[in-house]
């Protein structure tokens, strides 16, 4: 065991937690120490035991990398690509009513929700709004950045609290350049989002409020993956582009039919089958859109590393061909 003074000098390392109470022998200066202090070290080797000990951050990252990937878009990527992205992703909380983007403002981060929901609202004059998109664990917030537009066309508001992995805009654009499977997944998702907006446009014009509300609640139910969630009348009115009283009437009608229970913004789905029957056709249409394969899916296997290639160039496994 090192001396107490050395232990104190290494306090920045949180050595007690590094190795279950065991303090490791480390150099006290030089590049190793500078790398430690700048958070660029994952593991420390202990000559006494011949073992590598992970630092807390690395241990957390490795344990989360081994667990199920909550975001479907990230989960669809080849593992190699996902691990590359993971290095640039940071975990953040999505707080109810938190605004991620305002219309016309630069997109500084993209968000891959693990759970919770983010609503994309068109903001019209006189502060009137209409929801034109909804993103949960199946997608990414900030898709327009993937299409080369750095300003957000919509207001993105957290509508159901949760967590997400986010990535800075610069890192995201770099990742997009080198990762074909990510581009493919985002093209597919952008298509689904565009189609969703088209469907909402027609739905808003032709369908009754009660059917639209049922549709919206089903989509919230799918995304949140829980029977009970929080949606106030006010927020629903903003999403559907109608007055609060319209939401109150429609929610009361659904409640009378014992499809939902609604109290102070807490919605519980009582009869999902019945709610589907009450919803307009748009729910099924939008749901199917998310699974539409694109023609470019044929290009994806070319990105998969060729493990059998002998003495392959390091570029063969990960980077795109020029």
């Amino acid at each position, binding site marked *: 065991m090192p001396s107490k003074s050395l232990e104190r000098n290494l306090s920045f390392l949180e050595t007690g937690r590094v190795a279950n109470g065991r303090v490791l022998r*480390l*150099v006290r200066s030089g*590049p*190793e120490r*500078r*790398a*430690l202090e*700048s*958070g*660029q*070290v*994952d*593991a*420390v*080797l202990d*000559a006494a035991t*011949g*073992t*590598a000990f*992970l630092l807390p*951050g*690395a241990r957390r*990252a*490795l344990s989360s*990398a081994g667990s199920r990937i909550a975001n479907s878009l990230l989960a669809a990527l080849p593992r*190699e690509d996902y*691990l*590359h992205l*993971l*290095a640039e992703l940071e975990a953040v909380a999505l707080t109810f009513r938190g605004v991620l983007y305002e219309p016309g403002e630069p997109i500084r981060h993209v968000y891959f929700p693990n759970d919770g929901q983010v609503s994309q609202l068109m903001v019209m004059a006189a502060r009137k709004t209409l929801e034109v998109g909804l993103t949960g664990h199946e997608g990414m917030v900030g898709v327009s950045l993937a299409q080369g537009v750095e300003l957000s066309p919509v207001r993105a508001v957290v509508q159901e609290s949760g967590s997400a992995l986010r990535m800075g805009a610069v890192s995201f654009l770099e990742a997009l350049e080198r990762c074909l499977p990510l581009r493919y997944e985002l093209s597919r998702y952008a298509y689904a989002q565009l189609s969703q907006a088209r469907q909402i446009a027609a739905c808003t014009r032709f369908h009754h409020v009660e059917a639209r509300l049922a549709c919206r609640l089903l989509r919230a139910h799918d995304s949140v993956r829980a029977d009970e969630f929080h949606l106030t009348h006010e927020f629903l009115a903003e999403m559907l582009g109608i007055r609060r009283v319209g939401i109150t009437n429609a929610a009361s009608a659904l409640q009378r039919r014992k499809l939902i229970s609604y109290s102070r913004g807490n919605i519980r789905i009582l009869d999902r089958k019945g709610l589907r029957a009450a919803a307009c056709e748009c729910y099924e249409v939008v749901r199917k859109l998310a699974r539409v394969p694109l023609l470019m899916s044929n290009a994806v296997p070319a990105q998969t*590393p060729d*493990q059998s290639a002998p*003495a*392959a*160039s*390091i*570029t063969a*496994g*990960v*980077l795109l061909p020029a």
Partner: protein
Amino acid sequence: MHLKKKAKSRRSGAAATTGVVMRLYVAGSAPNSIKAIANLEAICQQHLQDGFELEVIDVLEFPLRALADGVVVTPSLAKISPSPAVRIVGNLSDRSNVLRALGIGA
């Protein structure tokens, strides 16, 4: 790359033996290790197309190998040849520093 299975060697170009020979010590797919690999890949692709040899060693699988090579923390990059031998510690995000250490004009 599949670092967990075993240490792997990667060569590029026919004249690999006359190129830069490096060893990168990483801790599985921990964040800084992934960054170091990605940063080194970019440098190799851009500056070392004429030939390089890179061995990636996962210290979680081969700690004794790393200790025998004098590695204390990961990620660490060791340039074996051409001399002088150089070691760089960290995720290799300081590109100019890495290029200088590898003897490549920034």
